[in-house]
């Protein structure tokens, strides 16, 4: 029995050592890569200067045509991330500040994402490879459930989120395989889709009266002298519960309501996402309203 217990102890030790080695290897591969996505691009850069930085979910990523800002002479990048919530948006901004970015204006898309303050696991997990190398990432996750496991158990985060940051993603990072996320200055144009889903039901959505991460973004901008422009972006016509946008306006009067800026279905790829033509119309309107000097 004694021999067996020693044998089991050896296996446990081997497992722990392997976890530590794999954790180090994976983290090193993620950290050295800067062409896979927006997070690694920010992590691996420093002191960038922007006139405009765009933040938010896919409704920012697919709606703000960053090259149109550049044509106006405004150095811009669209850091909107499809599937992200305000938890990740706030962290993106914090990471930029940690990396000493100098930003004049932040355009934040805040509408449907104001209804919750939880994290979007699929996107939040993409910050985890850097958790031991960035204080803001560590602190941002500290309030989250499972932080201790994610932070202290070696390799646990790569196992828990293996679909997002597992072997496959680590391998692509190791070989610097490019993605489309950084094309078009971060703007991801959508095609018009015939018979796309032009219906949406947001009746059950309600904006939180005090969204923690939205308030955090506001205070970061204030502390860093960044002009914050918060907008609600368009939805297609056939939406049940459209008064949601009025409720947002009531709770947060500073948010500009552009839900009606583009209405016809032909400008939409799906109900919550405009196609490239719609996005260009919308961006032109934003440029006219906020940057028309």
């Amino acid at each position, binding site marked *: 029995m004694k021999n*067996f217990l020693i044998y089991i102890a050896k296996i446990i030790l081997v497992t722990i050592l392997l976890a530590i080695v794999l954790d180090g290897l994976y983290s090193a591969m993620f950290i050295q890569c800067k062409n896979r996505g927006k997070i690694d691009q920010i992590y691996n850069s420093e002191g960038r200067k922007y006139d405009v930085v765009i933040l938010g979910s896919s409704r920012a990523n697919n709606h703000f045509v960053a090259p149109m800002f550049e044509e106006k002479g405004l150095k811009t990048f669209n850091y909107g991330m499809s599937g992200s919530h305000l938890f990740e948006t706030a962290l993106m901004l914090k990471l930029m500040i940690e990396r000493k970015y100098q930003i004049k204006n932040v355009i934040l898309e805040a509408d449907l994402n104001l209804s919750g303050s939880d994290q979007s696991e699929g996107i939040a997990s993409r910050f985890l490879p850097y958790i031991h190398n960035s204080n803001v990432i560590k602190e941002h996750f500290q309030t989250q459930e499972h932080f201790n496991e994610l932070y202290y158990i070696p390799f646990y985060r790569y196992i*828990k989120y293996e679909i997002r940051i597992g072997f496959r993603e680590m391998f692509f990072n190791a070989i610097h395989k490019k993605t489309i996320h950084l094309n078009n200055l971060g703007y991801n144009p959508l095609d018009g889709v015939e018979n796309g889903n032009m219906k949406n039901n947001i009746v059950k959505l309600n904006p939180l009266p005090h969204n923690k991460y939205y308030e955090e973004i506001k205070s970061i901008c204030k502390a860093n002298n960044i002009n914050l422009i918060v907008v609600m972006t368009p939805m297609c016509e056939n939406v049940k519960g459209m008064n949601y946008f009025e409720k947002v306006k009531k709770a947060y009067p500073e948010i500009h309501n552009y839900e009606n800026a583009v209405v016809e279905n032909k400008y939409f790829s799906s109900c919550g996402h405009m196609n490239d033509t719609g996005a260009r119309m919308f961006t032109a309107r934003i440029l006219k309203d906020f940057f028309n000097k």
Partner: protein
Amino acid sequence: MFFNSIAFAIFLPIVFFLYWFVFNKTKSTQNALLIIASYYFYSCWDWRFLFLLVFSTFLDYYTGIQIEKGKSEKSRKFWFWLSIIVNLGFLGIFKYYNFFASSFSDLLNSAGIKASPILLNVILPVGISFYTFHGLSYVIDIYYKRIKAEYNFVDYSLFVSYFPLLVAGPIERATHLLPQVKVKREFNFETAKEGVYQIIWGLVKKVVIADTCATYANAIFDHYTSMNSFSLIMGAIYFAFQIYGDFSGYSDIALGVSKLFGLDLLRNFNYPYFSRDIAEFWRRWHISLSSWFRDYLYIPLGGSKGGLWMKIRNTFIIFVVSGFWHGANWTYVVWGFINAVYFLPLLLSNSNRNNMDAIVLKWNFDSAKVIMSILYTFLLTCIAWVFFRASTITDAFSYLKRIITDRHFGSQYLENERYNYELLLLIGVFVLVEWNNRNKVEPLSGKKSLLKLSLAIAAILAFGTYSDYKEFIYFQF
């Protein structure tokens, strides 16, 4: 509580410690602890079904004794049939009632008679097919005087409800397991080490092979109408490895865990995808079920004795019943039927026992023929698996038809955000490892075992699929 869960990783060492350090005085204390642990293990799914398990155990225990004590043949027959009817009755109600009710109603509707079936809102108790078969084999063996009835209820209960085999087998025989639980187990380092190897290799099969293949197989089968020929072929192959990794992985863990407690269970898989014909496949796949049906259904029906039609009838019965055992769906029945069709030519030409020897390859034409026959058997198996995996028979036929008619063999991006070919390398490595170790129970023991063990653990950590957590397929049966 799944074998690949944190809960089990806590449960197992606690039971192991209590078994060898606290309850190790006599075989009775050892058995009592294993029963308590087994009942706790089972109640983690649904404690209400524990009563069914205990009732089934008591029924077979009592009827077994009554059969043995029976002075007249009439009395023996009465207790025998009582046990058979009640056991199969439970299985019928919980597993098959809704299927028969809706099938009967469909039949009436198709004949123009309007009928709506009265369906029961029942959950299938985990492992009912497995522990019912344990009990049945015990009672049948007593009736035919192959074994003596067990008078110690604790020992008998452990035979039926021993937790490593409780929910998904292997289906044990009283002749094999009961003698082991009748004696006090002594710890053996080498046996326990073998158990650890089997547990770790079982985990590799489950989380690295089965669960990873599952994400691809599901993405392809669930959207087969938009898949090209290459994706559909890959889907069938991925499912073949999913079900093999899942079930044989479970069996490996069960056997390995049992070795830690000094109990040897029946081997359930013997590298089935290296079979040279379908008959050999069925000697290597789910061995405990195949041999159960052979001993308790095929042979009593007359086996391969009798005339040609008897042979054909018995072959179809055993395969169709085996398919039906897997689940209350016509797809399983057709899967069994297809395997019977595959098997029949071998039976009729008396070549079903041709490939009993070990596979040895050399650089000659005969070896090339062996490889071709292995690939051909795998192809047949994959075609049958399409029926096993598809939701309906129509879906299965459409799936196979589309492989032939689509004729596009390019890469395709799947719903799981992966390309259809991405797992080929992993499967290739797995097949090579199994091939090189096909004469052993698992590939980790032997020379450089620590290195092989480390690689297996690294594979579990790095290549395992965890975020899309999957149950063991055979739990539903």
